């Protein structure tokens, strides 16, 4: 879709917290099957993601997380059942969806600076022609600050470490100012500091009213912080609030090995950041 949706671009900088979940869900799946023409990877998936909610997909490599995410963003067609994104079939709301894939094809040849990569996050709003303005530059700068890569902006992407590149990709996603963020293993390669910045950024996105879908195999980090968690192992093992879903039995079924899950799971939902405390284990229980 080349027509920009200006109304979707504007950041709702009022800190009103997440929108009430009575609204139409951003993503709704009913009996959805995902996979490829010759092979269904995960059958019969049903869930809803209301505006302003974080949703975690947990599973091993090959469990179908990436396939589900690619179906949601419109890279793969649904193989059965129903899927609507913003009330439409997937692949129709480019300006409202930001996607961070797991693999980046841009090898080390691509001559791009960090700032160029982050600025690409603004392209979906403007199509081929429309000018990217000063306000976009501010958004880009703010995304760069959020991920703590201000000093790297003029560096070539290829000279960065894996973790710095991942911060750059995350900044690109943030610069999009999307209503739905779809992140496939976003913490790959991040150091402790990067993880902290990332968790803060996701919190801010949720506060802004955006929904976030995160695929991860890290049950102790962001997964436990989402409102809903889905365990995937080529089928839906369970779905619900993290404290109900992340049980030793379910984890055994998902990962095939006994995982010592942290029993004190907490819910991550637009934490006010007037305190200087970090996230992680200190997030207060709702």
């Amino acid at each position, binding site marked *: *879709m*080349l027509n920009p949706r200006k109304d979707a671009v504007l950041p709702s900088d009022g800190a009103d917290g997440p929108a009430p979940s009575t609204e139409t869900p951003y993503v709704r799946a009913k009996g959805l099957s995902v996979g490829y023409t010759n092979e269904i990877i995960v059958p019969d998936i049903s869930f809803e993601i209301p505006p302003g909610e974080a949703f975690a997909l947990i599973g091993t490599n090959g469990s179908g997380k990436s396939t589900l995410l*690619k179906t949601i*963003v*419109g*890279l793969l067609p649904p193989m059965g059942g129903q899927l609507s994104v913003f009330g439409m079939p997937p692949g129709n709301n*480019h*300006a409202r*969806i*930001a*996607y961070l*894939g797991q693999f*980046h*094809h*841009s090898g080390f*040849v*691509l*001559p*791009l*600076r960090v700032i*160029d*990569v982050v600025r*690409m996050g603004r*392209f*979906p709003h*403007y*199509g*081929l022609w429309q000018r990217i303005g000063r306000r976009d530059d501010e958004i880009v700068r703010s995304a760069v600050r959020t991920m703590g890569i201000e000093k790297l902006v003029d560096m*070539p992407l290829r000279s960065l470490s894996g973790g710095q590149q991942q911060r750059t990709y995350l900044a690109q996603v943030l610069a999009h100012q999307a209503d739905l963020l779809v992140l496939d293993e976003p913490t790959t390669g991040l150091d402790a500091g990067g993880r902290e910045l990332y968790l803060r950024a996701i919190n801010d996105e949720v506060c802004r009213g955006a929904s976030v879908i995160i695929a991860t195999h890290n049950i102790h980090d962001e997964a436990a912080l989402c409102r809903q968690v889905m365990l995937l192992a080529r089928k839906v093992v369970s779905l619900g609030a993290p404290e109900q879903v992340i049980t030793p039995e379910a984890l055994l079924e998902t990962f095939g090995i006994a995982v010592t899950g942290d029993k004190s799971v907490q819910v991550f939902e637009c934490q006010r950041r007037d305190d200087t405390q970090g996230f992680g284990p200190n997030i207060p229980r709702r």
Partner: protein
Amino acid sequence: MDWLVTPFATNGFMVQALVAGVLVSIACAIAGTFIILRGLAFIGDALAHGVLPGIAVAMLAGFSGILGAAIGAAVMIGGITLITQRSRLSSDTAIGLLFVGMLSLGVAIVSRSNSFSGDLTRILFGEILGISVQSIIIQLAATLVIMAIAIICARPFLLLSFDPEQAEVAGFPARLYHNVMLFMIAITVIVSFQTVGTLLVFGLLVAPAGAGALLAHRIEAMMAWAALFGIFSMYSGLLISYHFDLAAGAAIILVTIVIFFIVFVIQNLRQRRTALTEEPNHA
């Protein structure tokens, strides 16, 4: 100074060759940049040889070589698309098959001509010193079209080079813009073959852009370096050819390759030096 200017000041054909060379260098800089960024080197090479039978037929039947080359390129792209879509073979296999097939078809057709080796040499190695004003006008038009495509498609081409999935999710259909890019590369090959020939045009596509990739931190800069290296190669290749009586196309391509290796060595030395100076800090 005389040595550098006189050949062009006293010979009209040298000026025409240089003008054609500059236009082709700009087109090749733009197309070559995306060939390198998108890893399309093999398809670029295949296109350069795939145009051969078209040119050969045009030569025998007496119509424009550029039209023949365009038909050859269309058959080549169509064939690759057909094989990759209708079979499980990867595009490398399809490209390789058609590449060799078209090349031998071209040589077979040319062998019917009375002046076999002369014609073949002209097609394979170009005839930059015999370029007509009409060809230059066509090259100018094509170069403008290529520049227009690169400007209009700047965002999708950038996203495509970064990650095709990102392009798709951002609302720029990856397959559409990939095909636009192939079209742009095909036009470049079609209008460039007269200057350095179908065998060597690939060098002009990848060597200047490759050297640019080593130096540049931005895509625009990479294109600018590529155009600069290409134009310099044209000029110095023509001069070398004039003074030492060497084949012009080959002399030009040799200069591009030499430039690439000079840039490569300088970059490596620079990187080694920065690595050495940074080491004590890490220790």
